[in-house]
C-alpha cells in the first residue's frame, strides 16, 4: 500500500514538472511569454548586474518578463552553447559579451561552436571601455611615458590583467604590437584581484575595465592613463584614448548585446532591434547605463555581426604576429 502511495506521489510530481517545463511558443506577436535571457557569467559580475538592471527596463518595453539566468563557465562559452542548442523561438536568448566570441576562439581549441557562423547576432546594446591605470604614486604621468619606458626597457614593466582571454589582456597585447612596447601581462582571476595587486604595488600598472577601476580613481588611489575606445568617454572627457595618440589598432571595447540560435524568426530580431533602439533613447535607461560607466551603443544585427568579425580578424592578426 505504502509503495503505491509513493508511486502516485512521484507520478503527480512528474506531471507538475512537465507543466512547469512546457513554455509557450509562438512566432507572431512575439513575445507572448517569459523570455529567458541567459547571462553566461556568474552572478555578481559587471555583466550580470548590467543585464539585471536593463532587464527591468526591457521587461517593461516588451510587456513581458525577462528572466535572467546565470550559466557561467568557460568565459561565456558554456552558457552560450546551451542557448545555441535551444529552440530558435526567441524565448531563450543569451547576453553576449564581445570577448566571448572574438577572443575566446583565439585561445581555446575545440570550442563547441563557431563563434561567428553559428551565432545569431541580434542587437548590440552598449560598450564598456577598457583602460590602463597606474597608482597615483607612479612616475608615469601619461600613456606616452609608459610607452617610452617600455620601449627602452623591454619586459621590465609588469601589468596585471583579469586573466588571459579577457579584453584588458588583449588590450595589452595590442599595445605591445601597435606601439612596439613590451609589457609583461600577469593574469589574475578577475578585475577585483587585478586592481588589488596594483593597489598593493605588486605590479606597475593594470589593464582593467574602467568601471572596475572607477571607485579607486575617485578615491585618488589610481590614475587612468588611457582608454582603448575609439572616442573619448562621454562621462570622462579628460581621459585620452590610445587611438587619438596615434595607436590606431589599440582598440578594444567590450561590446554587450543579445545573441541567439540560428533560424530565429525575422519578427523576433526586428522586435528586439525596435525595442532596444527605443529603450536606449529613454533618459532613465541612459542614466542607468552611465551608472556603470558603460556607453549606450545601439547596432542592428548586421552591424553588430560585422563589428565582431572585424575585431576578431584584427585580434587574430595580432596574435599571429606577436607569437613570433
Amino acid at each position: 500500500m505504502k509503495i503505491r502511495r509513493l508511486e502516485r506521489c512521484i507520478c503527480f510530481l512528474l506531471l507538475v514538472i512537465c507543466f512547469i517545463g512546457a513554455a509557450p511558443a509562438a512566432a507572431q506577436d512575439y513575445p507572448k511569454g517569459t523570455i529567458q535571457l541567459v547571462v553566461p557569467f556568474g552572478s555578481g559580475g559587471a555583466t550580470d548586474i548590467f543585464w539585471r538592471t536593463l532587464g527591468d527596463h526591457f521587461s517593461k518595453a516588451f510587456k513581458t518578463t525577462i528572466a535572467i539566468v546565470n550559466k557561467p563557465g568557460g568565459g561565456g562559452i558554456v552558457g552560450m552553447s546551451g542557448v545555441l542548442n535551444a529552440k530558435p523561438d526567441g524565448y531563450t536568448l543569451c547576453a553576449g559579451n564581445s570577448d566571448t566570441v572574438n577572443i575566446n576562439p583565439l585561445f581555446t581549441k575545440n570550442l563547441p561552436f563557431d563563434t561567428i557562423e553559428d551565432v545569431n547576432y541580434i542587437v548590440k546594446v552598449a560598450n564598456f571601455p577598457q583602460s590602463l591605470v597606474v597608482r597615483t604614486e607612479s612616475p608615469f604621468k601619461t600613456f606616452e611615458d609608459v610607452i617610452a619606458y617600455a620601449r627602452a626597457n623591454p619586459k621590465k614593466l609588469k601589468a596585471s590583467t583579469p586573466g588571459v582571454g579577457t579584453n584588458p589582456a588583449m588590450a595589452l597585447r595590442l599595445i605591445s604590437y601597435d606601439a612596439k612596447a613590451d609589457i609583461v601581462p600577469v593574469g589574475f582571476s578577475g578585475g577585483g584581484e587585478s586592481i588589488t595587486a596594483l593597489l598593493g604595488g605588486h605590479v606597475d600598472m593594470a589593464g582593467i575595465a574602467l568601471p572596475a577601476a572607477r571607485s579607486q580613481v575617485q578615491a585618488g588611489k589610481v590614475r587612468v592613463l588611457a582608454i582603448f575606445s575609439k572616442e573619448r568617454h562621454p562621462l570622462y572627457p579628460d581621459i585620452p584614448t590610445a587611438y587619438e595618440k596615434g595607436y590606431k589598432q589599440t582598440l578594444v571595447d567590450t561590446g554587450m548585446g543579445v545573441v541567439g540560435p540560428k533560424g530565429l524568426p525575422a519578427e523576433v530580431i526586428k522586435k528586439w532591434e525596435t525595442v532596444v533602439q527605443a529603450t536606449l533613447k529613454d533618459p532613465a535607461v541612459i542614466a542607468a547605463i552611465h551608472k556603470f560607466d558603460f556607453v549606450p551603443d545601439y547596432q542592428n544585427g548586421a552591424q553588430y555581426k560585422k563589428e565582431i568579425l572585424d575585431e576578431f580578424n584584427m585580434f587574430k592578426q595580432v596574435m599571429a604576429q606577436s607569437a613570433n
Partner: protein
Amino acid sequence: MDVFRDLLFGFSIATLPMNLLFCFIGVLVGTLIGVLPGIGPPAALSLLLPVTFHVPPVSAIILLAGIMYGAMYGGSTTSILVNIPGEAASVVTCLDGYRMARQGRAGAALGISAFGSFIAGTVSIFLLIFLAPTLAKFALRFGPPEYFSLMIMGLSILVYLARGSIINALIMVCFGLMLGTVGLDNMTGVTRFTYKITSLMDGLGLVQIVIGLFGVSEVFLNVERAFKQEVLKTKIKGLLPNREEWRRSIFPIGRGTIIGFFLGVIPGMSVVIPTFLSYTLEKRLSKHPEKFGTGMIEGVAGPESANNAASCGTLVPMLSLGIPTGAATALLLGALMIHGLRPGPLLMTESPEVFWGVVASLYVGNVMLLILNLPLIPLWVKILKIPYHYLFPLILLFCIIGSYTTNNNSYDIIIMTIFGMIGYLMKKLDYEAAPLVLALVLGPIMENAVRRSLVISDGDVTVFFTRPISAFFLIAGLLILFSPLFLKKTRVSAELRTGEE
C-alpha cells in the same frame, strides 16, 4: 569617542522599522540558502538585487549583507544533521558535528554553532570598526608570493587534519591538488584535462565535489547498511549545549573568531580555509586529539565561529578600500554603484549613513539570527526522526538541486554522482575527504600564486624568502609540518603512531 558616536548614529539608522524589516528578510533568506546545499550567497544576492533598486541604498545593502552572513549560520545545519555541508565553509563541521548528531547531541551541536556564530559575529563587528582601515592596508601587502607561502602553510596543517593514516591523507591531498588543475589555465588560456567537455572549462565545481563526497556517499553507505535508525535508539538528550560543553567550547570560539576574521580580511582567501585552520588548531591544542572526528564539540564550535568571523572580515577590504574579496562582496559593490554611491575609501566620509548603518545592522542581524535559529533547533532535530526510506530520497533530491543550481548546468549532477561513488569507495577504504577538499581549495590559489610571483620577479625564486610576510608563512609551515617529529613524546606523535598502525 567619535567611533561610539558614529556607531550610535548607525544604530539609529539600522533600527528604523524599514531597515529592521530588510535586515530580517536578509538573514532569513540567508539562513534558508545556507541550509540548502549548493545554493550559495552569490546566487541569492543577484536574484534579490533588482528588488533593492527601489529602496534606499542603506536598506538595500543591509538586506544583501544579511544574506551573506546569514548563510554562514544556516550552513552548519545540514552538515550536522545529515553530513551534507550546506556551504563549502561547513565541510569541517561534518567531521564532528555529524558524529555528535549520531550520538544524540544534534541539538548541542546546532546550538553551539549558533552561539559560536553569534559571538564570532559580534566580536568581528568590533574588530571591523576599530581595525578596518589599518587591516585593509595590511591586506594589500599580500601579493602573489605571500599567497603562495600562506597556501603552503595551509597545506602543512594536514598532518593534524588527518584522522587516521597520514599516508592516506597525503594521497588524498595529491588527489585534491590534481583535481584542482582541471580547467582553463588562467595564465596561458590552455585547457587542461577537460577532454573537450565545455562544462569542465572552469574546472570541477567545489560544491559538486563536496556534496558528492559527503552527502551522496553517505546515502549510499546508509542504504547498504541494515535499515536501522541509530538516532532513534539513542535518545536525543537536551536541545542546547550543557555547562560542560560550554566550558569546552568557549576558547575554540574565541580562537576561531580571531583566525576567521584576520584571514577573511585577505582578499581572495576563501571562507573555507579559516575553518580548516581552526579545526586543526583545536585538535592540536586539545588534550584528546585522538577523539577528534568522533563527536568533539570543539571541532564544531571553532570552525563555525571561524566561518562567521571570516564573512565579516571579507567586508573590511570591501567597505574600507572598495575591493571585492569574492563573488558575494563583488555583488555588494555592484549594488552600491547602482545606488549611485562610491564604494571605497570615500564611503565612510561621503555616505556615513550607509557605512555606519550597515555596520550597526550587522549587529542587529546577528541578534536576529540567534533568535531565529535557536527555536529552529528542535524542528531540525526532528528531521532525524524521519524514517530513512523517506529521508534518503529527500537528501538525494536536495543534493541534486544543490548541484544543479550553482551553475544551472546538468553536467554538475553527473560530476556530483561520480564523486558520490568516489566518496563511497573512499569511506570503504578508509580515505578521508577533508584533506582532499582542503587541497582542492588551496591548490589553484597556490598554483596561480607561484606562477604570478615568478612572472613578476622575472623567474627569481628567492622572492618567497626575501619578503618578510612570505618568509614568515613558509617557516611557520615548515614548523607545523615537522613538529610531530620534534615533539616525539607528546600526544601528537602518540596519535600519529596510533594512526599509522
